[in-house]
């Protein structure tokens, strides 16, 4: 093959060098503003990245702020008074009840003196690691749209989630593990099923790979189902080799298309993933102390703890974005405590509290906080008014989110809700600002990461978003 011909072919394929194969054929024209990740930016696109990987914890159902992190003494004073709206606001599920104080005791913790309720005794101990957004707001009070919004920035289905955008913008740190991993609650998928980790209109390679942490086969199709006895490990190994030979012979005849090269490479990577993924998913390799620290010895914390530990093992090995979900969709076993705050909140809170504290300590101890960001999110808050007896209804008016790790100013808080914790009062932030900040830490200008779709240059932050300077270091 002469030189010019090779150049020519090279150009057709866009080149193979350095570029993640997974992205090579994703036929999305990066808009002119988008660039390749750059080493002088520490892997960022537009400026120096402080963060390379992200773990997102998501509390399905709408974690109650005034019963966890947003201490509201005013509610104690007004407890039992009917002061809320007289008509059911759009998105509430029931008429509004009387003001309800938190049934839990609050104390101040750490040097930062953060108020934390008694449902989070373990997180209270590491509260100085976190930066709080105390006045996050949602544009909806409905689970489905709100879950989309916190993940994709839009109220509607079909838009790429944060993890998909990050995968699209920055590519892989390792080719041997899935780039965007989702660890759903063992009890089921969140609201909108797989919607919150869809790649939307981005290529399918950016969608979240669902891993069933407690399953015998955590990654779907990593290996053949045992019922196909011909698909042994040695048949796999020799099969990949045979396939590469057949493909090479074929390419010699039809070597005019990069798709062939890309597909050849993809099988090489598949073979490598078969070797590295089982090791990554094998938490038995962790010490007994670690198991204990994450609560794997306790039925209450076991499921969430296992997934937190798995998340750590994955980011450690180069997975870019991991989502850990607490609670399935539905009316029970999650954070959607309509029925009774004192009865429903403590068990779900206890299931995550110890594992989260352990995850923070572990990430820190291993030096992963140097370039790993940990975020704690939910779809909206809850009303300061009682629903039914002592439950609380949905409220997008204000809620709490925290961030910890790389690039974060630990121990600070930004924003404030009103005296009832009903609406954001000061420093109100939306998912747009939150997402803009995360992208910023990853070295991405949220306004410049765009994809044109049906006539619109779409971005994660729509037409909004400010980097929240107050919480970044």
């Amino acid at each position: 093959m002469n030189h010019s011909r090779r150049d020519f072919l090279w150009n057709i394929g866009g080149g193979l060098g350095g570029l993640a194969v997974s992205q090579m054929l994703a036929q999305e024209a990066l808009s002119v503003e988008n660039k390749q990740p750059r080493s002088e930016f520490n892997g960022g696109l537009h400026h120096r990245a402080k963060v390379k990987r992200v773990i997102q914890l998501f509390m399905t159902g709408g974690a109650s702020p005034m019963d966890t992190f947003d201490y509201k003494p005013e509610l104690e004073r007004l407890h039992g008074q009917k002061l809320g709206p007289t008509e059911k606001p759009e998105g509430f599920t029931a008429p509004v009840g009387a003001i309800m104080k938190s049934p839990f005791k609050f104390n101040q913790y750490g040097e930062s003196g953060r108020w934390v309720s008694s449902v989070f005794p373990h997180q209270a101990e590491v509260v100085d690691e976190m930066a709080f957004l105390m006045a996050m707001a949602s544009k909806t009070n409905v689970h489905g749209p709100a879950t989309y919004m916190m993940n994709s920035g839009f109220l509607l289905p079909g838009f790429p989630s944060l993890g998909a955008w990050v995968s699209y913008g920055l590519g892989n740190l390792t080719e041997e593990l899935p780039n965007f991993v989702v660890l759903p609650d063992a009890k089921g998928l969140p609201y909108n099923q797989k919607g919150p980790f869809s790649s939307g209109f981005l290529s399918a390679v950016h969608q979240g790979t669902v891993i069933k942490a407690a399953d015998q086969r955590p990654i779907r199709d990593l290996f053949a189902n045992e019922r196909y006895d011909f698909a042994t490990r040695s048949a796999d190994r020799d099969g990949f080799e045979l396939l590469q030979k057949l493909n090479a012979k074929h390419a010699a005849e039809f070597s005019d298309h990069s798709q062939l090269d890309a597909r050849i490479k993809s099988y090489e990577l598949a073979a490598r993933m078969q070797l590295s993924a089982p090791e990554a998913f094998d938490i038995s390799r962790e010490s007994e102390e670690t198991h204990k620290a994450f609560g794997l010895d306790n039925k209450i914390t076991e499921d969430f703890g296992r997934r937190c530990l798995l998340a750590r093992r994955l980011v450690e090995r180069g997975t870019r974005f991991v989502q850990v979900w607490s609670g399935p969709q539905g009316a029970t076993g999650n954070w959607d405590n309509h029925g009774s705050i004192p009865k429903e909140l403590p068990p779900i809170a206890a299931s995550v509290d110890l594992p989260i504290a352990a995850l923070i300590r572990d990430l820190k101890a291993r030096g992963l906080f140097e370039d790993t960001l940990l975020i704690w999110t939910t779809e909206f808050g809850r009303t300061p008014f009682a629903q039914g007896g002592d439950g609380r209804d949905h409220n997008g008016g204000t809620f709490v989110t925290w961030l910890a790790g790389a690039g974060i100013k630990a121990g600070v808080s930004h924003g404030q809700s009103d005296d009832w914790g009903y609406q954001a009062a000061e420093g109100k932030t939306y998912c747009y600002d939150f997402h803009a900040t995360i992208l910023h830490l990853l070295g991405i200008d949220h306004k410049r990461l765009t994809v044109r779709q049906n006539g619109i240059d779409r971005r994660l932050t729509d037409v909004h978003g400010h980097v929240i300077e107050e919480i970044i270091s």
Partner: protein
Amino acid sequence: MEHKKLRRCIVRHRQTHRKFYPSIGLPILIVMALCLAVAAQESTQDADGERFFLDQIEPVLKTHCLECHSHSSGEMEGGLTLDWQRGWAVGGDQGPAIVPGKPEKSLLIKAVKHSGADLQMPPEEKLSDKEIELLVEWIRRGAPDPRTNQPKMSDQGDPTDWWSLRPLKRPAVPQTAKTEGEEINPIDAFVRRQLRSKGLTSTPRADRRTLIRRLSFDLHGLAPSPDEVDSFENDLDPAAYMKLINRLLDSPRYGEHWARHWLDAVHFADSHGCEHDVFRPNAWHYRDYVIASFNRDTQWSRFIREQLAADWFYPEQTHLTAALGFISAGPLELSRASTAPVTFDYLERDDIVTQTMAVFASTTANCARCHTHKFDPITQDDYYSLQAVFAGGGKGDVEYDIDPEVAKKRQRWNAVLEAAKNKDESQLLSPEHVESIAMWEQNLGENTSLWQPLFPKTFLSSDGATLTRLDDNSLLASGNRPDKDTYTISASPSLKTLTSLRLDVLTDDRLPMKGPGRCDNGNLHLSEISAFLFDAEDAEPKQLTFRKARADWNQSGWTIDHAIDGNIKTAWGIFPKVGDSHYAVFELEQPVELTYSSQIVIQLQQQHGGSHLIGRFKLYVTDADSATAIVLPDAVRTAIKLPGDDRSIQQDLAVASYVLQRKAEQELADLPSQTSVYAWSSQYSHGKKLPNSMTPKTVHVLRRGDIEKPGNVAMPGALSAIQILPSRFELKTPNDEASRRAALADWLAENENPLTWRSIVNRVWMQHFGRGLCETPNDFGRMGGVPSHPELLDWLAVWFRDDANGSLKELHRLILSSSTWKQQARITSRSTIASPENDGPALDTENRFLWRMTPRPLDAESFRDAVLQISGRIDFSAGGPGVQQFTQTKGAQLTPYLDYGAFDWKQPEAARRSIYRVVWRGTPDPFMESLDFPDLGLLPAKRGYSVSALQALALFNNDFVLHHSQVLANKLQAEHVNLDEQLVQALRLIHLRKSNSNEIELLVAYAQQHGLAATCRVLLNSNEFMIVY
């Protein structure tokens, strides 16, 4: 391509307000000196102020304000411009925006601080505190602004002067040298001219094996069989290729494959999606409709009309109701529908408008939801006019008759039923019914006086209601209305035998809802009826027992059996058929003999509570055999006793109405049951069925798309940019929502609509070549692509509309028979003349100018179907309910839990074509997703083609592939004895070619060690199979 508006050129006019005062005398000198000092200071201030403006203020205005408040953007919201000094000084609708020196009095500052609820700018994004401070400081300094010249209006020129909006004209086909008198396909003439101008050359025609494989996957999404390849390769007929195209187009497999392209485009799925991802068991009728439409080659304009308003255009062809599944193809946000209904309507219609305009007109009308379209001539008013088209209905299961003849009958008998209920004289007494009424009377014979009304001698209410006997011997309850009551009535029947009792509950104007109950809603609950017989000789009463009971109407769950079940907690009810009289007949266990002195006492217990009491009623007895006991209303009974000539019109009407109502009910009950399709109807709103059709809802133009800021009421219409067509519809019956949809369909299907015809030919082209002539099939606006071959696109649009008369099959024939399409994919030395060294700029690496065929990987369905086909198990049965290739268990909420891994591929339904799979919008098949099956939450513009390690693993290890590798191996082993032959045949089936000894050697070595199934798995993963050249 970039669509940045051209930057306005600011002409800087340095303003120097130097003042000069003549000097006379000392005091004056002093004054003068002072003045000069001030002047000098002012001059410095001017220069500083100007710099301050240019450095600090103008960037803020440019970034945040000018998009909606400038000449160049063509938008002056609220009449305000901020791109020159006079703009803010004169101000907009609310007066001057800035009072120089007085930030606290300046509207601009009020707006940017978001201090008032009514004026917050920019509306979506508040400025940073620093930016606001800068603006305040600027105004405090007197708002120096050097921009004194009025800027030019938008320099985009006429916004409708854009390729896709220009009227369609047929361009001349380029003259090409004809070779040996052969007709040149006009497509080739256009393409070659462009290639020549770029210094490129086309590639020779592909060989026949390649062509038949390409054609089969293109038209059927299936591989050809090896025999078909052989016969095509050996067909000496010069028309062999056209014969092949025609054969493929005539096969039902064509519609099954091409329907999928359309179902993608309209984001069709078998479930709602979103939080409550509920199954739509009847959605598949639309899928079958689309398949049938492609197969029967429905004319494009008709396809548009059917899908938007089949009920309006073709009311008698009721089977076309399924076409309306188009409107409801997208998601339904059930959680929002129930808890946030106000926003629901606008967002639901937004999705429908977006879909309709994208797929038929390649227009992004939805970009004008919050403001007039920033790049295309689509106003916000246009957008809400489109919303108004869909304001009169909702998504839901719509019932229809697949057989139009049945529909006709149903319509007829429903009309009769309606007339009978309304006592419509002109219809009921019309000659067509005379005979059936006469027949009925004849059959009735002597049975006319079967029921004897009871004359109530005593009647009592247990709980203080007043019972009054009326002239017709019925009893009316009035006065006190207790919670519960029991009526006791005694009478002396004059029958010798008693077989049944009858209770009529009657309407009365004095009762709530006209009764017949006393409850506010007109309902009643009869808990228990009991009857006692007193014979004169016998002092002890004898309780009569009932064998069975029937009623003309039972409330759901409140049947008449409950009145004789001995259980006081259950009862008979008649809701929601209140305002009508009803009757119940109670048959005695056995007939009882009555004497002259017999008395009967009847008790009606009404113990449900809530005043569910009988308002007016009448009792009857009979001695007739129960089976023939016909309950006739009094008026009818009286009338039929008279000879025909003696009856009044009223009496004729009573008889006719009685007879025809029963006949109509019987006829309707005998018709085959209706079919349902998940579609669109004025009887649905927010995912729920309404008791009656709604009148269209009012749609407001929402300022900034904000539900809290409703503006003018929008009238049904379309785009004003197509000036040749009316942009607002003049409707004779605007409240008939179908007429709105029909008007939009007409607007779209109009010959003069330039978007429609360009849109469809581009969409078809995209499927044949892998990319459209315009690369953005849903957007022909300024944010979309521009066509690579604009004249070809226009020529095809006109040809398709006029010459092909909207036939897609004709369009396929034209494209597929072009030399352009038949080129080979492999790059030959000839086409590489344009190499980077000698002709870099002209090098077309992406093949936009079509100097060869672009190879493409199999899409998800084609891979799956071809594997089923090669393994010999594909089931070509067509249509019907979707096959669920997963197991389903109850989920936490309404959405079930689907497990694709648990599906047993041995099941017979595993072998159906992919188009017949149930597609669950929120939980799609992960295997299909790994092969780029799109997310159907939004409108996918086109399929992507990705390659990744996870995809490779799915293709290598997914149960579907492994199962069918085994099936294929079994088949090969059954057909061929030795391994070599089995492998030769495997290559013949999968790669459609003869094998060479080298590769057979490789395969044999592997197969000997790992088996034939493992070898088939490798071959099904090979590039040669996965890619179509």
